[in-house]
């Protein structure tokens, strides 16, 4: 019963997620700005619908929460905001505030992305999934959250690669915020792609899932 309901939602969402506006709407409202707004609205609707579909089960919510928490700990520990020893301390000094906000966004996006990817893999017939933007986004976010020059990573880079290592660690240190913004952009792109997969196609096999559960 639950899956029938979801299928109905997908059927209604499929035409609306198409980037081409319907003839009736384009004939009555021709300005391009209005069309863009409509396309933007459809994308947001598709994204919200995808989240509803994927997070209908608590398992996917738990996976998302666990992954987001793991990355939150990693980012904040790399950023030297979270310490476990000699005492457990978490603090956000003024200079780290923007970085902290960006790392929170990244951690949440990573949680959502991993969970939705698992959902798509379990329910989709497609053999190829696009993980490039997901992995590149998350890699950049992990790298940019480290203070390369002031940590042992910078030491390793400099001692291994000499001048190139100095340049690499300087870039990683100086452009932490822009790199994090790029990683968020890549993750949003990955999120958009996975939403398209969920709402544009009808390849989600709920029957198989139902059968599996019965067995």
């Amino acid at each position: 019963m639950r899956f029938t309901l979801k299928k109905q939602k997908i059927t209604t969402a499929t035409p609306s997620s198409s980037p081409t506006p319907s003839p009736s709407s384009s004939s009555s409202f021709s300005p391009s700005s209005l069309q863009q707004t409509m396309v933007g609205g459809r994308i947001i609707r598709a994204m919200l619908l995808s989240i509803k579909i994927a997070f209908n089960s608590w398992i996917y919510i738990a996976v998302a929460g666990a992954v987001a928490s793991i990355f939150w700990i990693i980012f904040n520990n790399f950023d030297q905001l979270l310490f476990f020893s000699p005492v457990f301390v978490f603090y956000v000094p003024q200079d780290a505030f923007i970085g902290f906000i960006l790392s929170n966004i990244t951690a949440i996006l990573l949680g959502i992305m991993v969970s939705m990817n698992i959902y798509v893999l379990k329910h989709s017939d497609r053999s190829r999934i696009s993980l490039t933007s997901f992995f590149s986004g998350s890699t950049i976010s992990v790298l940019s959250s480290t203070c390369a020059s002031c940590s042992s990573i910078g030491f390793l880079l400099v001692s291994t690669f000499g001048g190139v290592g100095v340049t690499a660690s300087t870039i990683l240190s100086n452009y932490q915020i822009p790199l994090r913004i790029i990683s968020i952009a890549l993750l949003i792109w990955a999120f958009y792609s996975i939403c398209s997969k969920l709402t544009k196609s009808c390849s989600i096999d709920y029957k198989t899932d139902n059968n599996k559960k019965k067995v």
Partner: protein
Amino acid sequence: MKKSLIFYIIFAVYIGSTSTLFTYNIPKAVGIQPENNGNNNNKLSLYSLVQRGSPLLGNPSAPITVVEFGDFQCDRCARFAKATEPQLNQTYIQPGKVNLVYKYFPNYGPDSTTAAVAAQCTNDQGKFWNYYDILYKNQGMANFGWASKDNLKKFGSQIAGLDMQKFNSCLDGQKYLSFVQSDLAFATSLGFQGTPTFVIERNDGSNQETLLGAYPFQAFQAIIDKKISSNTGG
């Protein structure tokens, strides 16, 4: 099912490599390696540090010494200087319980060394800690010219009572270049690989604990209070 397996494998490898990076980058509260401890206990004693000309803040007879190994281009060192050092100063340094010694660990590139030489030049005139505050307040992107000689001279001119002629000739002549380089070699010999690194010890160089990273005040407080109570206890 195969697709899921591939994804799980890729994700496991990814998490594995991230955790490796995590353990490599994690801020550490560790002791100095035993093989170095014997040789460096004396070198890290307050007497030895001050004798060598390292800048000192606070009462020289304070029972606890905090040694900071820092770089003026390091943003985490700036975080310590802005957020933690004032609290340490107010709670422990001003009451005479702790003193703070600065050691140069210029690992960000050539401008770090120049800034360190300039800072040691101000120490000649007893103005190191004023210069320390000014440098960290004005810190810019590493190796992008904020710590050029001209800018370092401008920062020096902001300190009331600093003899600029002496300072300029000291900086132009690179008077303390070998001093800074020996500090760097010393930090490397201790096995330190990042800035800021702190050694918290009794002022004779014993009972050392090391913090690698921009730890907040609470972490210092926990270690210092423990050392003070162990000092008074026995």
